[in-house]
C-alpha cells in the first residue's frame, strides 16, 4: 500500500517535472527566435520546422562535450553548485496550481515556501564562484549574490502586498481571490515593482551584471563546462519560467479567465490559460533583453536600495492604510 502510494506520488512529480523541463527547453528557443526577430535576423532555423528542435540539438552538443574541472577547485562544491541551482529552481514548482486543484501540494504556506526555496537557490551561485578558485568566477558570484539578496527584499515586499490583499499564504486562495478582478488593476505599481525585481532576481538584462561578458568572462559559471554547465543553464531558464508563472498567478489571475463559453470537453482550459499568460511574461523577459542596455553595477545597487526599496516599503504601508481607511479589508472574520 505504501509502496503503491509512493509510486503514485513519484508519477505525480514526473507528470509535473517533464513538461516543465520541456517548457524550459522551449524557453531557450523562444529567446533565440524573438531576439533574432527583434534584431531582424532569421535565428536558428535548420533543426526541425522553423528550428523548433534546436534546444535538443544544443543539449546534445553540451552533453557530449568534455567536462573540465580546474586543478585548484574544491571538487565537491564545484559539482554541488549547479545541482543546487537546478534542483531548487525545480522545487519551486511543487506549490504551483495548474488548474483548480491541479497541484502537487496545496500547502497553506505556499507563497512563503516559494520565497524560501528561491532564497536557497542563491547558494548555487555562491558555491560555484568560490569553489572554482578563479577570480572572474568569484567576482561574478559575489556580484550576483549581492544583487539577488538585495532584490529579494523588494520581491518579498511586493508579494507581501498581495498577501495583505488576500489574507492568505495559500496560492490557490490567492488565485481564487482574483475571480472578481485581477490584482494588476488595483495594484499596478506593485506589479511594476515586482516585475523589475523579478528581472534582477533571475539575473536578466538590464540586470545581468553577473555575466557581464566584457569584464568578467561569463560570471560565476566561467569555469563550468559540459554537463554541469547545462545544469546552470537549465536552472536559469527554469527560474525565468517560474517567475513568469508567479507573475501570472499573483497579478494576472493565474488560471482564471472570463467564462466565454461552457467547456464540457475533457480538455482542461485552465492550464492552457495559465500557460498562455506565462508565455506572455516569458516574451516580456526576452523583449527587455532586446531593448535595454546593461546597467552599471553601482547604479544597480543604488537603484535597489534608494529607489526600489523605499517605493516597496511605502506601498506596504499605503495599501493596508487604504484598506483600513475605506473599511474594505476583504477577509475580516
Amino acid at each position, binding site marked *: 500500500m*505504501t509502496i503503491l502510494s509512493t509510486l503514485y506520488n513519484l508519477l505525480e512529480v514526473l507528470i509535473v517535472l517533464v513538461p516543465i523541463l520541456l517548457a524550459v527547453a522551449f524557453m531557450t528557443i523562444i529567446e533565440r527566435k524573438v531576439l533574432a526577430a527583434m534584431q531582424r535576423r532569421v535565428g536558428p532555423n535548420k533543426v526541425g520546422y522553423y528550428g523548433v528542435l534546436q534546444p535538443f540539438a544544443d543539449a546534445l552538443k553540451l552533453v557530449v562535450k568534455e567536462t573540465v574541472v580546474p586543478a585548484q577547485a574544491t571538487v565537491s562544491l564545484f559539482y554541488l553548485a549547479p545541482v543546487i541551482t537546478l534542483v531548487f529552481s525545480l522545487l519551486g514548482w511543487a506549490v504551483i496550481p495548474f488548474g483548480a486543484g491541479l497541484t502537487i501540494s496545496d500547502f*497553506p504556506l505556499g507563497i512563503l515556501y516559494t520565497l524560501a526555496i528561491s532564497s536557497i537557490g542563491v547558494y548555487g551561485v555562491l558555491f560555484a564562484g568560490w569553489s572554482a578558485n578563479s577570480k572572474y568566477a568569484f567576482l561574478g558570484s*559575489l556580484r550576483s549574490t549581492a544583487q539577488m539578496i538585495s532584490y529579494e527584499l523588494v520581491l518579498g515586499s511586493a508579494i507581501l502586498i498581495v498577501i495583505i490583499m488576500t489574507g492568505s499564504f495559500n496560492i490557490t486562495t490567492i488565485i481564487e481571490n482574483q475571480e472578481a478582478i485581477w490584482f494588476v488593476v488595483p495594484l499596478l505599481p506593485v506589479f511594476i515593482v515586482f516585475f523589475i525585481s523579478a528581472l534582477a532576481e533571475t539575473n536578466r538584462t538590464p540586470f545581468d551584471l553577473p555575466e557581464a561578458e566584457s569584464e568578467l568572462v561569463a560570471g560565476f559559471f566561467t569555469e563550468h563546462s559540459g554537463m554541469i554547465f547545462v545544469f546552470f543553464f537549465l536552472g536559469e531558464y527554469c527560474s525565468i519560467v517560474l517567475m513568469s508563472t508567479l507573475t501570472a498567478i499573483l497579478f494576472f489571475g493565474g488560471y482564471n479567465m472570463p467564462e466565454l463559453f461552457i467547456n464540457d470537453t475533457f480538455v482542461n482550459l485552465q492550464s492552457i490559460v495559465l500557460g498562455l499568460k506565462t508565455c506572455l511574461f516569458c516574451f516580456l523577459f526576452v523583449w527587455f533583453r532586446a531593448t535595454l542596455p546593461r546597467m552599471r553595477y553601482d547604479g544597480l545597487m543604488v537603484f535597489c536600495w534608494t529607489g526600489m526599496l523605499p517605493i516597496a516599503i511605502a506601498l506596504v504601508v499605503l495599501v493596508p492604510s487604504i484598506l483600513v481607511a475605506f473599511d474594505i479589508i476583504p477577509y475580516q472574520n
Partner: protein
Amino acid sequence: MNTILLDVLAFGAVLSGVLVITSANPVISVLFLISVFVNAAGYLLLLGVGFIGISYLIVYVGAIAILFLFVVMMLNISITEIVSVGREYTKNLPLGFVVGTVFFFEILSVIPAATTEAGELPLGLFTYINGLLLGVDTSLTNSDVHMAFTGVGADNGFSPYLQIETIGQGLYTYGTVWLLLASIILLLAMVGPIALCLRPRA
C-alpha cells in the same frame, strides 16, 4: 516513517553542529552551519510547525548564513593560522565548561520567574491603554486579554485557525511585553554598530 525521519534530522543537526566547530576551513564550517539550519527547519516542518520552519529557512538560511558566507569567503585567512589559534583555545576547555555551567544555572533559575509573574503587570497596562484607545471594556482580567478585543481565543475557536493566526494571537496579546522588548533589543543592535563605526567628520 515520520519518527525515523525526525530522528535522522535531529541526528543530522547535532552532527553538523559538531562539524561546525571541528572543521578547519572557515568556509566549510559555515556550510555545516547552513546544514544545521536546514536540518532544524526540516525537523520543525515535520513536527507540523510549518510557519516557524519556513521562517527559519527564509531568515537564517536565506539571509544570515549568506552574509556569513559572504564575509568569510572574502577574508583571506591562512588555515594554519586558524588551527594554531584553535590549539590555544582548546587549553581553556575546563574553564569554558565551568563558565558554561554557571551560565546555564543562571538562565534556568531566572527564566521561569520572568515568564510567569513579571510579565503580568505591564501586560495589564497595555490592555488598559488599548481599551482606552479602542473604546473596549477591559474590566476582564489579564488572562482574558484577547477576549476583550477579538471575542474568539486562538485555542478555543471552532473556526479553522491558521498557524500564523494562532502565533499572531499569542504574540500580540500575551507576548506584547516580550515583543516590545525584543524589538527594542533589535533596534539597539542595528543602531549600535552604526554608532560605533561612525567617525565624526573633521
